């Protein structure tokens, strides 16, 4: 159970978050949505304990994240960054094995149980087929699944991911969406930063809408992502219906309020 309450974060003297909330429970997939620069990534990084708070609280199962440093925190949650480094010469199974770090002592060798956990993580993320390839030979979609496999090897009950689909094509996005939804169905707490509102509405149990560093709405996608909220937060004429996002891209659809008075 994750609870972020009234989070305030400053980056380089600028306040990025001023009062953001986020809650996530096991078996639920929460999508954090909002315009560019709203503070979505910062909120999820704060929830993961990677970004320090100016004030407010982040609690994992009721324990303050500040009291959960290092390997303890790593056993509670895994974080998948937006763009991880792709080092030369590292093979997929070696990269995924790095995810076992929180379970290893400083000088101990990986045990059979660690190898098995790595295999399970690779199997679950669908990367076994290219386990022996080098990271720098993979496609964007494959690489993103490897990143998820690294996080799964941590065997934490929660997974937070910063825009896991933003650089992927349609097919790879769909594969990733099914994987993440499946992980939530398996009982994991899953929190994602998502740009694509149609995708968020399709996969998430709850959406958390962040705007100007604040959480402005949270709840099931169909009740939260209303036309008026989309207009207010994203400044667009758009609606969600039947899993599709209908956008009046140029403000010309009859019956919708144009953003500008048409020329006479």
């Amino acid at each position, binding site marked *: 159970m994750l609870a972020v309450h009234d989070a305030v974060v400053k980056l*380089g003297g600028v306040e990025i978050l001023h009062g953001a909330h986020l809650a996530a429970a096991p078996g639920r997939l929460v999508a954090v949505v909002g315009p560019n620069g709203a503070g979505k990534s910062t909120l999820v990084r704060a929830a*993961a*304990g*990677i970004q320090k708070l100016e004030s407010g609280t982040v609690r994992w199962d009721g324990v303050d994240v500040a009291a959960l*440093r*290092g*390997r*303890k*925190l*790593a*056993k509670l*949650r*895994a*974080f*998948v*960054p937006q*763009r*991880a*480094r792709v*080092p*030369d*010469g*590292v*093979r997929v*199974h*070696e*990269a995924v094995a*790095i*995810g076992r*770090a*929180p379970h*290893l002592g*400083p*000088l101990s060798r990986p045990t059979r149980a660690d*190898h*098995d956990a*790595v*295999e*399970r993580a*690779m*199997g679950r993320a669908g990367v*076994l087929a290219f*386990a*022996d390839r*080098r990271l*720098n*030979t993979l496609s964007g979609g494959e690489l993103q699944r490897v*990143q998820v496999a*690294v*996080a799964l090897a*941590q065997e934490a009950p929660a997974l937070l991911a910063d825009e896991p689909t933003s650089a992927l094509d349609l097919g790879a996005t769909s594969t990733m969406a099914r994987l993440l939804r499946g992980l939530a169905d398996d009982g994991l707490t899953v929190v994602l930063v998502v740009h694509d509102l149609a995708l968020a509405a399709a996969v998430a149990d709850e959406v958390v809408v962040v705007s100007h560093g604040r959480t402005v709405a949270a709840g099931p996608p169909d009740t939260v992502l209303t036309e008026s909220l989309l207009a207010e937060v994203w400044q667009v004429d758009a609606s969600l219906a039947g899993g599709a996002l209908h956008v009046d891209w140029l403000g010309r659809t009859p019956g919708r309020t144009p953003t500008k008075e048409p020329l006479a």
Partner: protein
Amino acid sequence: MSAVAAPTARTATAPARRRAALRQTAVVAIAAVVLLVAAALSLTLGAVHVPLHDVIDALTGRAEDGPLREIVVSLRVPRMVEAIVVGAALGVAGVLLQGALGNPLASPDIVGVTGGASFGAILVLLAFPSAVALLPVGALVFGVLAGAIVLMIAWSGANAGATSRLILAGIAVAALFNAGTTSLMVAFSDRVQSAVLWMAGGLSSDGWSDMEVAWPYFVVGFLGAVVLARPLDRLALGDDVAESLGAHPKRIRLAAVIAATLLASAAAALVGLLSFLGLVIPHLVRLAGGTASHRFVMGASALVGAALLLVGDTLARVVLAPIELPVGPFMVVLGVPVFLWLLRGAH
């Protein structure tokens, strides 16, 4: 379902793991054999040939006192040990820096250590030639000083500990010390001859005196490297992943740069400028071993570094004996074609 799936999954990467382990064992075995052969040759060959059985007698204390025993025990053994320790130190320093900075081009040059050490050495050689015994001290002190300045700059202000900050600070500090070195060479241009030989890099047959100054730095540096091997693996996928795993990327980076500074400064104190080794050995080991895991790369780089420097030094002494070639350029001329050939076949 999972009971059926588990064994299939386990067999999927186990053969690959075994193949990788075999290949890594082969790399270590070959390096170890080369090291042993080079050690035997370095003790027997030279201006005076000492047969192997006499070497063994001298080492086991069965030989009578005499010039042969003296050559082996007082001149060649210290030189062999220096080559092994310095080669290992340069290899490990390269691994530490490349791992900590996530940059395949990192070497002791990049954190200012080489620039500082050469300034310290040239300062003693040119400005205080009568105190030439202090040369290793000068190189060590100024090498560590340069590293410390770079770390202080890199770990201050916003974005403290970021890789780009560290590299830029290193380049700036190196430029400063290099300017100092050049100024010294201009000011004392009549004595530059002695500096040139030091800058070329090479070992000397002067017993244990240098090692007596430098050994604590080697010990701390090597111990640091052992402890840092696994933490550096956690940095491999970037700082965010490292933090996800509960590691502290900036602390790991700081510790690795300190350990590398100690090793590279101590190495420069003993042999002058051989930092090319520090750049190349980790790549050589990764290419040959087919893995970038630091637990393998760290240990194998120590072994390969020791073997390469010992082979290079022995060849440099023997090829045109009794003239000794400078080891630095000699090793670069030998090493670059091999390295480029490996690079051609790399993925």
